[in-house]
C-alpha cells in the first residue's frame, strides 16, 4: 500500500472507480441481473476497501494548508484558470469514508427492493457515488461545482424511476430546489473569482490582480480582504446553495417528499451523504473564506437552526408515516449540526462535524430498517404496525440501537456529537443551548414513541404475523452501522483527533483572535464522557418519569 | 427649396404610415404595399443623407434596397398566391390555424 503516500492519485481512483464500473456495466446484458448486482457490489466494495487506508495514511497533526493531503493538481481549463485539484483534510476524509461505506451498503441493500430496470439502477447508483466523492475531494471551485451538479442527475432518476406514488413530483422538486440554490451559488463563486483577479470595475470593486483561479485554498487566503458588504452578498449566495441542500428550516420542504418517495437506498444515500454536502459546503467554503459574512449572518442562521431543531422535532411527533418521521428528524438533527457550526468555536464545530457523520450513520440505519418492513408490507404507516418486537426480535433490537443512537443515548455516537455541540453552543450563548436541549428531549420523545407504537403492544394486525425477521443480507448491511455507532460512542477520540486541525483552522479563519482570547483547553476525553453520561442519564430519567 | 429636415420629416411620415398600415390593414396585398412604403421611406432617408453628407454610400445602398424590395415583393406575392390557393382568401385574419 506504499502508493498512498507516494503521490499516487488515490483520490481520483476512489472517485472514478464507480464511474468506470458504471461504464463497464453497460456491457452486461440487462437480463443477467445476478451478474449486475454482483458486479456493482464488487465495484462498491473495492471502492470502500481502497478508501479505508486513507484513514491510516492520513497525517492528523499536519496543520494549516498542509492538512490538505493526498493532493492532486493538474491543469484542466488553463484559459479560465480552472485546475483539476483534489485534496482532503480530516473532515473530507471522514465524509469520504462515510460515502464509500454507505455506497456499498446502498448497493447491497437494493438486491430485492429493486425489481425492475435493475441495470440502470445500479449504474445510476455508482454514478452518484462518483459525484459525491468528487464533491468532497475537489479543491477547485469550478470542479466542485461540476461534481455538485453532476450528482443531481442520477439522484433525480433514482427518485423518479424507482420511487413511490408521487415520485415524479418529488424528483422534480428535489432537482429544481437544489438547482435553484446552486445556480445562485455559482454567482457567488464568480464574484470571488473576479475579486481575486480582475475585479468588477462597474461596481468599483478592485480586484487583487492575481492570475485567474478557482483555487479554494487561495480563496481561503484572500477571503478576509473582501469588504464586509460584499462578503455579505457572496455569503448569501453560498448560504442559499448550501442551506437548501442541508436543508435548513424554510428551505426544507423538498426533503420529506424526496425521502418518502425515494427507494430505500436512495433515502439512505440522501440522508447519509447528500445532506452533508450542504454542511460540508459551509465548513469548507463559506466559513473560512467569508469571515465577515459569517459573523454578519450568524444570528439569522442560528435562529433558523433553532427553529429547524424544534420545528423538525415537533413535526416528527405528529407523523403517521415512519419514513416521513425519520425525514423530519433529519431536519431537526441538521439544525443541530448548523447550530454547532455557527457557535463559531472549536468545541461547537467539532461536535458539528462529528454529528454530520453520526447523522449519516444513524439516519441511514433508520431508513434501511424502515425499508426492511416496507419491502414486506408495502406500507410505512405507523398505525399498520404494532407488537413487532415479538415477531421480529432481531429487527427490534437493531431498530432500538439505531433509534437510541439517533436520539443521543450515552455510549452511542449521537450522544457524543450532540453533547459536544451543546458544550460549544453553551460557550457561545447559554440560551441557544437551552433551545437545543429542548430539541434533544423532543427527539427522544418522537423516537421512543415511534418505537413504542411499532414494536410494543399486541401483535394484532394479521398481516404482521407473517413478517420475517432480518435475513443475513440485511443483517450484513446493518451490522457495520451498528458497529460504527458503538465505536464512536465509546471511543470518539480518533475521530476528534482527525478533525481537530481542520476545525482549529476554520475557527482561526473565521475569528482570528479566538485562540488569543481563549487558549485551547479541551476537556480530556474521560472527563468529557463522565460529565456527559451523568447529565444524559438525568435527561433520560426525566423522560421516563414524564 | 425644401431643406434636409423636410425630407427627413417626409420619410418619417411615410414610414409611420406604412407601419400603421401593416398593423391595421387585413388585406395581404395592402400589407405588402405598406411594407414597400416603409422601404421607400428608408430610401428617401438614405438619399437625403447621401446628399447632405456628400457621400455616395447612401445612394448605392438605395439601389440595393430597391433590388431587395423587388425580391421581397416576389416572395410575398408567391406566399399570397399560395394562401389564396388553400383558403380562397387573402385576409390576414383568415389565417388562424396557428394560435399564437
Amino acid at each position: 500500500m506504499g502508493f498512498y503516500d507516494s503521490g499516487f492519485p488515490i483520490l481520483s481512483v476512489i472517485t472514478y472507480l464507480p464511474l468506470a464500473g458504471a461504464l463497464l456495466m453497460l456491457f452486461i446484458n440487462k437480463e443477467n441481473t445476478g451478474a449486475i448486482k454482483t458486479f456493482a457490489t464488487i465495484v462498491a466494495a473495492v471502492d470502500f476497501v481502497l478508501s479505508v487506508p486513507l484513514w491510516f495514511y492520513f497525517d492528523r497533526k499536519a496543520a494549516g494548508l498542509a492538512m490538505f493531503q493526498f493532493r492532486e493538481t493538474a491543469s484542466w481549463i488553463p484559459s479560465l484558470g480552472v485546475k483539476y485539484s483534489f485534496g482532503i483534510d480530516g473532515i473530507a476524509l471522514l465524509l469520504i469514508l462515510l460515502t464509500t461505506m454507505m455506497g456499498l451498503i446502498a448497493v447491497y441493500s437494493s438486491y430485492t427492493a429493486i425489481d425492475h430496470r435493475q441495470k440502470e439502477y445500479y449504474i445510476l447508483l455508482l454514478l452518484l457515488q462518483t459525484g459525491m466523492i468528487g464533491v468532497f475531494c475537489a479543491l477547485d471551485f469550478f470542479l466542485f461545482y461540476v461534481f455538485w451538479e453532476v450528482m443531481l442527475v442520477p439522484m433525480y432518476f433514482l427518485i423518479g424511476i424507482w420511487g413511490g406514488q408521487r415520485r415524479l413530483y418529488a424528483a422534480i422538486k428535489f432537482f429544481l430546489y437544489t438547482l435553484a440554490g446552486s445556480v445562485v451559488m455559482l454567482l457567488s463563486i464568480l464574484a470571488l473569482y473576479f475579486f481575486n483577479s480582475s475585479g468588477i470595475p462597474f461596481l468599483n470593486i478592485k480586484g487583487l490582480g492575481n492570475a485567474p483561479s478557482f483555487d479554494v485554498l487561495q480563496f481561503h487566503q484572500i477571503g478576509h480582504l473582501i469588504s464586509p458588504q460584499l462578503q455579505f452578498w457572496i455569503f448569501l449566495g453560498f448560504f442559499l446553495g448550501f442551506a437548501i441542500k442541508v436543508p435548513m428550516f424554510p428551505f426544507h420542504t423538498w426533503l420529506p417528499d424526496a425521502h418518502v418517495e425515494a427507494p430505500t437506498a436512495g433515502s439512505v444515500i440522501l440522508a447519509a451523504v447528500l445532506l452533508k454536502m450542504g454542511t460540508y459546503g459551509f465548513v469548507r467554503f463559506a466559513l473560512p473564506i467569508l469571515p465577515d459574512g459569517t459573523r454578519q449572518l450568524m444570528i439569522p442562521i442560528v435562529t433558523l437552526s433553532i427553529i429547524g431543531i424544534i420545528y423538525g422535532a415537533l413535526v416528527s411527533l405528529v407523523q403517521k408515516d415512519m419514513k416521513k418521521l425519520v425525514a423530519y428528524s433529519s431536519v431537526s438533527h441538521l439544525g443541530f449540526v448548523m447550530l454547532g457550526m455557527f457557535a463559531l468555536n472549536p468545541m461547537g464545530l467539532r461536535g458539528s462535524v462529528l454529528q454530520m457523520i453520526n447523522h449519516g450513520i444513524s439516519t441511514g440505519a433508520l431508513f434501511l430498517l424502515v425499508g426492511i418492513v416496507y419491502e414486506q408490507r408495502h406500507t410505512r404507516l405507523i398505525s399498520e404496525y404494532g407488537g413487532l418486537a415479538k415477531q421480529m426480535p432481531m429487527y427490534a433490537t437493531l431498530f432500538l440501537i439505531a433509534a437510541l443512537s439517533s436520539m443521543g443515548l450515552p455510549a452511542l455516537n449521537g450522544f457524543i456529537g450532540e453533547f459536544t455541540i451543546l458544550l460549544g453552543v453553551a460557550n457561545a450563548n447559554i440560551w441557544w443551548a437551552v433551545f437545543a436541549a429542548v430539541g434533544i428531549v423532543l427527539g427522544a420523545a418522537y423516537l421512543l414513541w415511534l418505537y413504542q407504537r411499532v414494536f410494543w403492544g399486541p401483535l394484532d394486525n394479521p398481516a404482521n404475523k407473517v413478517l420475517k425477521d432480518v435475513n443475513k443480507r440485511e443483517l450484513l448491511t446493518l451490522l457495520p452501522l451498528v458497529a460504527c455507532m458503538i465505536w464512536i460512542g465509546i471511543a470518539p477520540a480518533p475521530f476528534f483527533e482527525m478533525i481537530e486541525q481542520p476545525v482549529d483552522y476554520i475557527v482561526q479563519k473565521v475569528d482570528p483572535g479566538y485562540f488569543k482570547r481563549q487558549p485551547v483547553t479541551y476537556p480530556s476525553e474521560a472527563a468529557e464522557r463522565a460529565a456527559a453520561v451523568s447529565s444524559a442519564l438525568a435527561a433520560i430519567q426525566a423522560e421516563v418519569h414524564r | 427649396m425644401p431643406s434636409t429636415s423636410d425630407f427627413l420629416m417626409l420619410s418619417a411620415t411615410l414610414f409611420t404610415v406604412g407601419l400603421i398600415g401593416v398593423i391595421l390593414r387585413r388585406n395581404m396585398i395592402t400589407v405588402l404595399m405598406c411594407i414597400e412604403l416603409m422601404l421607400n421611406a428608408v430610401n428617401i432617408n438614405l438619399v437625403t443623407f447621401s446628399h447632405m453628407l456628400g457621400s455616395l454610400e447612401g445612394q448605392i445602398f438605395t439601389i440595393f434596397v430597391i433590388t431587395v424590395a423587388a425580391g421581397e415583393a416576389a416572395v410575398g406575392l408567391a406566399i399570397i398566391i399560395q394562401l389564396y390557393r388553400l383558403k380562397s382568401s387573402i385576409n390576414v385574419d383568415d389565417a388562424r390555424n396557428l394560435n399564437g
Partner: protein
Amino acid sequence: MTWADTLLLLPELIAATGASILLIVPVLGGRARGHMAKWAMLALMAVTALAVIGSTYAVAGVQQTPTFRAMFAVDAFSVFFKLLFVVVIALVTLLSEDFLSEERYSTWEYYSLLAFALCGMMFMASGVSLITIYIGLELLALSSYILAGYYKNHEESTEAAMKYFILGTVSSAILLYGISLIYGVCGSMRLSTIAAALSTMLSNDALMFGIMLLAAGLCFKIAAVPFHVWTPDVYVGAPTPISAFLSTGSKAAAFAVFARVFYVAFPAFHLDWSNVLAAIAALSMIVGNLAAITQTNVKRMLAYSSISHAGYSLLGIIAMNEMGLRGILIYTMVYVFANLGIWATILMLRRHAYAGESVEDFRGLHKRAPFAAFSMVVFLLSLGGIPPTAGFIGKYFLFAAAVQAGFGWLAIVAVVMSAVSMFYYLRLVVAMYLEEGSGAETIYSPSLRFVTALSLTVTLVVGFIPELPIRQVIESSSHLVGRVVQR
C-alpha cells in the same frame, strides 16, 4: 475588385454558384433523381468548408482593395461562424432527407434555397459594412420565408410563411430605418468608421434612435421579447427541418451580426444602450421560460426555449467585455449542437406531416430508442446548463461576463431562469424515462443517427475538455475585443 478579392470571396461564390446549379438541375431533367440532391448538397458543403479554411490562408497573402476591405472581412471571427454555418446546413440537409422523400417535395430547389441561405449567412458573418450585413440578412431571410412555406399543401406551413414574411420584412424595414439614421449621423456605413465617429461624439437622440431601431431589427431575428411573437407559430408551422434551421443557423447568423455590430461600432455608447438591451434580455428569459412551461407541443416549447436562449446570449452583448464576446461565440456553438440533436430526435418521431410532436409522443422512448433517449437527456441538460455538458461552459461565460460587467441583477435573473428552464426540459426526460407507454412510432434513419451522434460528441467534448474550444473562441474573438479594451 481584383482577383485577389475574389479569392477571399471564394466560399460565398461557391455557395452561390452551387445554389444556382442546384436550382437548374431539375430543369435539366434531374427531378427524377431526387435522392442525389442530398449528396450534391453535402459535396457543396464540403467544398465550401474547404474554401472557408482556404480563405484564412489566402487572407495573409493577398492585397485587398480598400473598397473591398471596407465591406467584407475575412477574419477569425467570420471564419468561426462560417464553419459553424456550413456544419449546420450540412446537418439540416441530413435532417431533411426523410421529410423530403416522405412528402415528395422537390428536393433540388429545397437544397438550393438552403445553399442560398448559407451564402447570406456567410455574408452576415463577414460583413463589416451595414450594406453587406443587410444584403446577407435579406438573402437569408428571403430563403427562409420560402422554406418556411415549403409544405405547399398545408395551411399551417403557408400561414407560418405568411406570418414570418410580414413580421420579417417589417423588422428589416425597421432595421433599415435605423441604419439610415446611423448613416446620417456618422456619415458612413462602415462599422469601424462609425465607431471612430462615435468616439468623438456626445450622445444624441437621432443616433440613439437609430441604434435602438437597429437593435430592434436584430432582436427580431434572434427572437427576443418583445419581437418574438412570430417564433412559436413559425416553428410549429414550418417543416420540422426548417424549424431546426431557423432555431439554429439563422439565429447564429443573427448573433454573429449582433456581436460584430455592437462590439465594433457601438462600444462608445455602451452605457446608453446596455440598459435597454438588459431589459430585453431579462424579458426574453422570463417570458420565454415561463411560457415554455405551459406548452404541450414540443416544437412550441422549443420555440419558447429558443426565445429564452436569445435572452441568455444577449448577456454577452450587454456585458461588452472579453468574456461576453467569447460567451456569445461558445454559447452559440453549444446551443446550435444541442438544439440540432433535439430536432433530430423530434424528426425521428415525426412521421406523416405534423404527427409526433406532443410531449406524450416521447413516452417510454428509452425502451424504443435508448440511444436517442440518452442523447436527448444530454442535450436537454446542456440547454439547461448543467455540467458536465457543453451548455454549462457556455452559460458560465455569459453569467461571468454579466457579473464582471456589474449586471448582477441580470445575472441573478439569468441563473434563476435557467433553473426554471429545467422544469420543462425535465418534462421531456420524465416522458422518456419515467413514464411508460407506446408513444409515437420511431424510424431512426442513419442520417438522423449521424446528426445525433455528432451533436452528442460536441456537447460532451466541449463539456469535459473545454480548453480546446475555449482557446479557439478566444482566438476567433480577440481582434474584436481589442477595440473594446482600448476604449
